[in-house]
């Protein structure tokens, strides 16, 4: 398993470089212009000069290696300098956003707290609710609990957040005036009161997002549990007098986890990709909002950096999932 992991890690390097290249070429091909959001009153010749100042005059085979150099050499240098007070970077050009003309990594770091508070939290909450729902729904198939769970999760999944989010705002912010409709990203949690405020401002986006996660994970959990509950080994275990809880929680659950692990592993990178629509509705302004604004503004350095970081996460999470398969079911071998 260790050898397999190391081999996979080594393979990920060329894989990721290739992914970076494909993403870059995709952005290069996509029609879009960082000047599109400038007012039409700015004449075309001025816009052309601005494009040149952004470095867009260079061809792609100059800009792609430059990005690679900045990403893999310059940015780590700045990171080391920032941590240890050294001066490796020596004023080298960092990855600069087209829109804000500031280092991309500083903006990403700025967006982390609200992304983790809201999107991360909703994912954890969603998964924690989904697992027991899935298990109970399968064990008591077609009970009232199962029927209600199915109904709520399917309705929840099929109602898009641009509707459910606004509905929550209309009820809880406009009519009842209980919760704020706009997320304050500058809020610092220091004491109990500020923590309560934080809870109040994150509860609606967390609910909207957790509903989606819960629906998805609980459906896979339930389906996979059902498959396993009907297997011969369960009958055998029951015949041997193993306790029900031990059968369900130890044997069946473990064997049912493979699809669930896959889904959860695939979901983690999407946390950092952000929940674009939900963030937009509640003005959370996390990574999702950053990415969509960058996409709309054709801010290539920003889009490139965020999507590449996501790609790294995707590759790593899928590797972790593969390793977990082997642990959950030792019969799976990769060598």
């Amino acid at each position, binding site marked *: 398993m260790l050898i397999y992991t190391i081999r996979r890690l080594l393979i990920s390097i060329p894989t990721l470089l290739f992914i970076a290249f494909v993403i870059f070429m995709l952005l290069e091909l996509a029609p879009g212009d960082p000047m599109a959001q400038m007012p039409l009153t700015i004449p075309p010749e001025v816009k052309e000069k601005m494009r040149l*100042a952004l470095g867009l005059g260079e061809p792609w085979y100059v800009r792609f290696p430059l990005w690679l150099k900045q990403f893999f050499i310059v940015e780590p240098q700045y990171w080391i300098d920032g941590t240890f007070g050294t001066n490796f970077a020596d004023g080298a050009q960092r990855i600069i956003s087209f829109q804000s003309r500031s280092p991309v990594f500083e903006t990403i770091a700025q967006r982390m707290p609200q992304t983790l508070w809201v999107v991360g939290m909703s994912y954890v909450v969603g998964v924690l609710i989904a697992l027991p729902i899935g298990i109970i729904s399968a064990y008591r198939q077609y009970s009232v609990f199962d029927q209600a769970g199915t109904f709520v999760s399917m309705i929840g999944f099929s109602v898009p957040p641009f509707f459910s989010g606004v509905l929550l705002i209309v009820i809880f912010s406009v009519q009842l005036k209980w919760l704020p409709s706009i997320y304050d990203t500058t809020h610092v949690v220091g004491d109990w009161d500020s923590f309560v405020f934080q809870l109040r401002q994150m509860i609606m986006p967390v609910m909207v997002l957790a509903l989606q996660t819960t629906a998805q994970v609980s459906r896979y959990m339930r389906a996979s549990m059902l498959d396993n509950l009907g297997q011969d080994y369960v009958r055998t275990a029951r015949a041997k007098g193993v306790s029900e809880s031990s059968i369900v929680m130890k044997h069946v659950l473990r064997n049912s986890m493979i699809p669930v692990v896959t889904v959860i592993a695939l979901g983690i990178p999407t946390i950092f990709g952000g929940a674009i629509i939900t963030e937009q509705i509640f003005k959370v302004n996390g990574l999702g909002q950053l990415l969509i604004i960058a996409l709309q503004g054709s801010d290539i350095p920003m889009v490139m950096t965020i999507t590449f970081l996501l790609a790294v996460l995707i590759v790593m999470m899928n590797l972790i999932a593969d390793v977990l398969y082997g642990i959950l079911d030792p019969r799976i071998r990769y060598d």
Partner: protein
Amino acid sequence: MKLKTALLGAVATVSLAPAAFADAHEGERGRDGQLNIIYWQAPSILNPYLSGGTKDLESASLVIEPLGRYDSTGAMVPYLVDEIPTVANGGVSEDLTSITWKLTEGLLWSDGTPLTSADVVFTAEYCMDPEGGCAQLSKFEGVESVEAIDELTVKVTFGAPQPNPYGPFMGGQSPIIQAAQFAECMGAKAPECTDANFGPIGTGPFVVTDFRTNDVIQLVANENYRDPNKPAFATVTFKGGGDATAAGRSVLETGEFDYAWNLQLAPDVIASMAEAGVGTPVSAFGTLVERLEMNLTDPSPSLEEGVRSTAAAPHPFLSDEAVRRALSMAIDRDLLVEVGYGQAGRPTCNLVPGPEVYASTENTGCLVQDIEGAKALLEGAGWVDSNGDGIREKDGVELRILYQTSTNAVRQDFQALIKEWWGEIGVETELRNIDASVFFGGDPGSPDTFQRFYADVEMYANNFDGTDPQAYLSAYTCDKAPKPESQWQGENINRFCDPAYDALVAELGATADQAERSRIAIELNDMLTKDTMTIVPLVDRGRVSAHANTLGGVVLNTWDSELWNAADWYRIGDNR
């Protein structure tokens, strides 16, 4: 009497008005606490020279100021100077080749250092640096030199007589930045100065304490602001992001914010939000006109690249003026306003709807919908439906139109309505909407940009900065047509080409007399609109913003930044 001087004479009286207005709310600086502003487009940077975006420009206007601004009537108001230089007061030379600004004495930057003419000169050098990619370069067009005469006097010299010498340092597009702060940020180094770009030192009423790009700005009152009793607010939170609906809701329904910018929403949506009684929508008109642009060249995909949509291939039916006129006649502009803009729109037939001196008052022929007239006109021009399929044709050419615009709820409603009316006069329409970042982008590789115009008709809105339409009208000369050789760059979207028009534009550039300028501008406007129907204006679009009922002093201004008088804003109903 020259109209311009009359206009400027009015400035003195207007500029006194805000002061008188504020008297009733006098008090010490920062007495009213916190102000919350929301812009649904989040500011990316606070340096207008690096980004021309309205959101960036307006947020920066809380911090940095130009020498003078336009007020809500379009008149010029001095900010950092004692008076606006004119020919009458000797500030503008008789031959119109130079303008001399005199800074007010004793002005301080927010860091306590004095504002001098060196800062003004530096601002010009900063923007005119060839490697800087300055977004406001057109403001400095024709400038030969900017020199400091003394500590407080700056002289701008133009290469040729400049009928409108108020490009540099006038209006929200060209505020003064501090030389000391930006000295290391010239040219190619401009983007490296993140701290300066995110927190410029200014002379405005507020100072940035925390800037989070595309998210939120925190500001506090400027301790060195020139009026000791202003601003009334001690702190400002400027939140960005979301959408216009959410911004409107936060001011009009929940009251979480005090001011929301540019609520581009259907009038019935705004009206139902305003019923909550927490805030008030306000509107004002500028020069923004939603219009249909007719393609005078053939966009047919069967033509080879290089010929398609260029002057080499005239449009099969839109080159016939009768067709263009009939298409305009079929449109009910009143209904469009009612559906899309409400109080923030009025029907227009003009490309230049304001300011008053430039507006063509006689051009009102298009305001009444005339379906029967349109049919008769087509009939008369030989466009008849001979095969009974409901679509008119002539010489085998059918009136089928591809009508494109950017993605936006109101524009899609307009498309649906106009398609319906055109259907009634026997013209079939295919609709297409394109993401704004592609449509308004200049990517020469994309077929969907508005400049490339691979469609028969397209709809968007455009306006001009400040109050002078010269640059705006000059965009329709023959040489400005987008074509493959110029990478499809150019502002003459219709590929309109008339030597008489070009000659008149040249004449406008050489005329200083205001009455004469008005006459020429109106003639140019009429040539494009009612005479040829090359451009079919639909709606003169105002701006709708909203403020909380407790926020006083708001004067909505479409000629400059909306936050132009934020220093005068105050809280109503405070016990103080």
